[in-house]
Each structure stands twice: as structure tokens, then as C-alpha cells.
């Protein structure tokens, strides 16, 4: 129940000016709402495109590309949370990290389904061949499996049960990020400009962490 309703006030017409002391919507809630909208918009547009028959002559390929791109985008966004927190000092933003990670997996599930259905049409033999013979597929699947495990262990119970090991486990998201960008890089035929931009972004995000870890190790100088 939202904080501004109560038995005493809900029977009366409510005005914001009546209780100015209680700010109702927290900034972090707004940010979360905005992220839900932002993260679901691409999926909504793809669904609309499907019903409008507007996904190019090769819709299977288009959906594979799009879901992969948005998976990577959500993963990068989740990796940006800690740097944003440290650079701005706004600690509460940490609350959107799990949400973004889960959206990455949400697009990841769709991306894997496009591979199973649109690329291979459920042919197990072709899928096995793809996994065994083609490094970009193997690497992409590895990234997917990492995100799968991280999703399974993203709830509070897992955090509690795993204790310290939780953080060690969830550091694998860096490996997933690198594998995701590498997967994209290896699959373009020419014009590597797009995977190059992802690689640049990822380098900054991971580079900051390396830098911070290195500084922490330096003895304090007076």
C-alpha cells in the first residue's frame, strides 16, 4: 500500500499540499520505473514489428541481432551502476543493479530462443555442430550460462546462503561482459565499428574497476 494512503486520509479527498512533510515518491523509485520502461521498450517495439510484419524480409536474422544487442546494452548498463555510484556518491543507485542484470538475462533468453528457433529450427544436430565448431557460438553460450547462474543466485535467499562467496560468484559478470563483446566481434563479416564501440565502453567500465583496485592496494601516504 502506498505510503500516502491510510485509513484516516483515504476517505477524504487527497491533496499533496495537505501533507507536505511526507515526500511520496523517492528518486530511486522514479529511476527504477524509468528503467523498466526503457528496458521493455525495445521488446515492445519488436512485438509490434512482428504484428505489423515490419521486421524486414529476414525477420529471424533481425530478431537475433536485436535481442543480442539489447542483451549487451542491459549488461553494460548493469556494469555502469558501480562506477556511477562511486563517481557521484549516490549510493542508493545500487538498487537498480539487479534489475538491469535481470533484464540482460531477459533479452538473453530471447536471444538464445532466436538461435534455437530461427537459426536452427530445433535441429539438434545443427545446434551441436554450431557449438562445437564455431568459437563465437561457444563463447556466446558461455556468456549465456554465466548470466543464467547469476540470475538463479540473484535473489535474497541466495545472497544470504552464499555469504561471501556470493560476491566472488557474481564477479563472473565481468567474464560474461567480455565474452558477450567478443561473441559480437567474431560474428561481424566486415565493418567492426559497432563491436568496437561496445569494446571501448566495456574497457572503460572494467578499466575503472582495475584502477580502483590498484589504488586501494597502494600504501597510504601522508
Amino acid at each position, binding site marked *: 500500500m502506498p505510503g500516502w494512503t491510510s485509513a484516516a486520509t483515504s476517505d477524504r479527498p487527497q491533496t499533496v499540499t495537505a501533507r507536505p512533510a511526507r515526500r511520496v515518491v523517492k528518486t530511486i523509485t522514479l529511476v527504477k520505473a524509468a528503467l523498466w520502461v526503457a528496458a521493455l521498450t525495445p521488446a515492445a517495439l519488436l512485438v509490434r514489428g512482428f504484428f505489423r510484419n515490419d521486421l*524486414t*524480409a*529476414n*525477420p*529471424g*536474422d*533481425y*530478431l537475433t541481432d536485436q535481442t543480442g544487442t539489447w542483451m549487451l546494452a542491459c549488461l553494460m548498463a548493469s556494469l555502469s551502476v558501480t562506477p556511477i555510484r562511486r563517481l557521484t556518491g549516490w549510493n542508493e543507485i545500487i538498487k537498480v543493479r539487479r534489475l538491469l542484470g535481470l533484464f540482460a538475462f531477459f533479452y538473453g533468453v530471447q536471444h538464445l530462443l532466436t538461435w534455437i*528457433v*530461427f*537459426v*536452427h*529450427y530445433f535441429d539438434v544436430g*545443427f545446434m551441436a*555442430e*554450431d557449438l562445437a565448431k*564455431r568459437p*563465437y557460438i561457444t563463447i556466446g553460450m558461455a556468456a549465456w550460462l554465466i548470466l543464467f547462474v547469476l540470475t538463479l543466485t540473484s535473489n535474497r535467499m541466495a545472497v544470504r546462503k552464499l555469504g561471501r562467496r556470493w560476491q566472488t560468484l557474481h564477479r563472473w559478470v565481468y567474464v560474461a561482459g567480455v565474452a558477450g563483446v567478443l561473441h559480437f566481434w*567474431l*560474428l561481424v*563479416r*566486415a*565493418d567492426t*565499428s559497432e563491436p568496437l564501440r561496445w569494446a571501448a565502453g566495456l574497457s572503460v567500465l572494467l578499466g575503472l574497476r582495475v584502477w580502483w583496485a590498484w589504488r586501494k592496494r597502494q600504501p597510504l601516504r601522508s
Partner: protein
Amino acid sequence: MLIKKAPDIRSSEITPKDIYLRRREFIQGSAAALVGAGLAGWPGDAEAQIPRTKLPDVKKSPLSTTETPSEYEYVTSYNNFYEFASGAGDGPKANSKSFKNRPWTLAIEGLVAKPATYQLDDFLKPYALEERVYRMRCVEAWSFVIPWVGIPLAEVIKKVEPTSKAKYVEFQTLHDVARFPAQRTNSLDWPYIEGLRLDEAMHPLTLLAVGIYGEVLPAQNGAPIRLVVPWKYGFKGVKSIVKMRFVETQPRNTWQIMSPREYGFYANVNPMVDHPRWSQARERRLPSFVPNRRTEMFNGYADQVQSLYAGMDLRRNF
């Protein structure tokens, strides 16, 4: 006390008198440009420079497949044409609105008795146009059925009389950033080069196309003149040709230069030889979400062309 002196107005800041007197024109011009930009909307909405025009006197060919041609809309909005945009999709259509297909010169050079440079219309005049409905298999495992309009390349070659030393033909696409905006990037090594062995070029199926669906070739499909070799992957069909050179040694083709492990000189459609990154055993006949056909050897033209490759190891010569 410091008294600041007002700085002199530098002469470079003074608007020349003639421009000052035309200031209203300038303002009106800018306003018109803004309104114009608003009305024109996105670049994709602009009218193409090449209007849809019927080609006259096109005769049917017995070499056509009886399969139903793909829809015009799809064939003209799903293209690979890196000179306009990277990757398959509607990028080439969107970025080719200002492409002009005339004037166009075509040079025939090298080991021929009659080298010449033609204006395209003069070049085409002696030949009768034919419609050839061919399967088109892209190396990316999708395909269309396209009714091309064109002239057999063999007729052109006979007319220019290659010398006995000529073994290959090298084709070159126009290199002109004014017409091909993506040639400003280095996504490929410009200009696009392709090549055929002389006997492949002389094969009756090999076509120089100037149209599709009975109409003038749209920019995104390779206007104004392109190669069509239906038993090879689509990238062999070099577009917007400005030069044909007869040579003694095998030319290097653009995709082979880009990635020799993945793209060879021959590029014959072959379901048994995979691209390193995907299987070539099946294809999507577009539009389709899923693979819906088994790919045929030589794209279904084996009876007509396999003798060209007798005794060759097609795994090595991919």
C-alpha cells in the same frame, strides 16, 4: 584608475556591404530551409532519383526457373550493398535515394582486340533485353527468386574479342563517395572488385543485368548495370559496374581480400562446404523466419555448370 578603452571592431567582424544588403534574403532562405527540412521528414521519405520505369521489348528466356518470383518489395528492401550501408537490410535502400544512374561510363580494357569506353546507353544499344528468372542465394544463407532483365555477358565478350592470353575478367564497381556515401568508411576495401574465369563469364547463364521485374534496376539492387551469376553466392554479382578488364591471372576479389579463410574466388553455392561461421546446408527463402529449404549444389544449376569444374577440388577452391 584603469580606464578601459573600447576595442576597435576588427575588420573581419564587419559584414560586407553586399551581404548586409541581402540579409533578408538570407533570413528567408534559412527559414525556407528549416521548413523544407521539416516537411521532407526523414531521409528515407525522399523520392528516389531513379523512378520506376518499364524497360521496353523484353523477351522471355527459356533459361528462367518456373519458381514464383519473390515479392518486389522484399527484393528491393533487403539488400547487401556496402557502398550504401553495412550489413543486409533496408540500409542500402534508405541511403541510395540520391544515387544517379546517368551519366554512366563503362570501360572495357585489357587483353581484348577492341578496348573501349562507352556511355552506358551506347553500350547497351546493340543488344536485345531478356528476362531471366533466377534463384539468388546469398552467402549469408538466405535466398530470393528474382526476375532479372539483362543481356548475356557472352555476347559482350564475343564482340570485344579477347586475345588468346585472356583467362579471366575482372569487374570493378564505381568508386565515388558522392554517389556511394558509405565509401567514406573503410568497411570494405574500395572499389569493390570481382572476377570470373573466362569460361564462367562466357557461360549462357551469366548475365549483365540492367533491370528487375521488367523495370529499370533500382539503386540498391546495383544500378545501372550489374553482374548476375546464379550458381554462385550473391557477392560475386558485382554491382554498379564501371570497368571490365580482361587479364591473364586470377584477380583478387574484395571479400577474399577481406577474409581469405571465409571467401574464395569461386564462391560456388555448395551445401557441403560450410562458411567457417555458419552452415551452408540450408537456407531461408525470404521472407521466412526459419530455414525452409535445403541448399542445392550450384544453387540448382548443377546440370548446366558442373562441367566447368570437372576434376576440381571444390573444398579447396571454395
